[in-house]
């Protein structure tokens, strides 16, 4: 299964990249995607996740072609 993982703002700085294409049949949830990409850092407590540009949760199931995004609390406006 191939999915696109994106990181934004301070979270992108912390993990050292903004986007990664991952392909692994062992990835079932957004949490799995994080662990695959950032194995040396637990998910920060205030991190948010979106799947295909909709807010989701870390245990949501991901599927082929999904875009999973991790980011800190928003601060616009």
């Amino acid at each position, binding site marked *: 299964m191939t999915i696109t993982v994106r990181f934004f703002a301070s979270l992108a700085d912390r993990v050292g990249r903004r986007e990664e294409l991952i392909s692994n049949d062992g990835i079932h949830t957004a949490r799995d995607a994080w662990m695959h990409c950032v194995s040396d850092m637990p998910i920060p407590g205030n991190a948010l996740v979106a799947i295909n540009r909709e807010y989701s949760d870390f245990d949501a199931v991901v599927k082929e072609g999904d875009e999973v995004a991790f980011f800190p609390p*928003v601060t616009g*406006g």
Partner: protein
Amino acid sequence: MRIEVLESAFDPWQEVVRHELSLSPGSFGATAVFVGTMRDMNEGDTVTRMTLEHYAGMTEEHLSQVAHQVQADHEILDVVILHRVGDITPGDPIVLVGVWSEHRAEAFEACEKIVEYLKSQAPFWKKERLSDGADRWVEHNTAGSRQVLN
């Protein structure tokens, strides 16, 4: 309805006038406007510059959803939401929310709902440049004046 994320400077007041000229004269009796502007101070530190990042695609989709929802809930005639991204300096406008309706109550309420949604849900992030040259991410927005969501 106009919803845009802008990469260059804009004049919110000119945008309000421009949009209002596109509406049918006499169709609205109230216009509520919110303009957010960059300050030169945050958490006790002087801020000289700011970079606004966003999640392209998700931002526009969510702002469109909330604008349509508010329009349906409050008998709103029209909505404008403009938000800057990129590098800005103190005094620059960050966001414009304009709402047109027949009466003031709907306009005030809808405008506030959109602003509070935008500040708590829309995927924008601010990074500040302080006077000593250091950069820092803004970790949270200030609380709204009152709870208006839901």
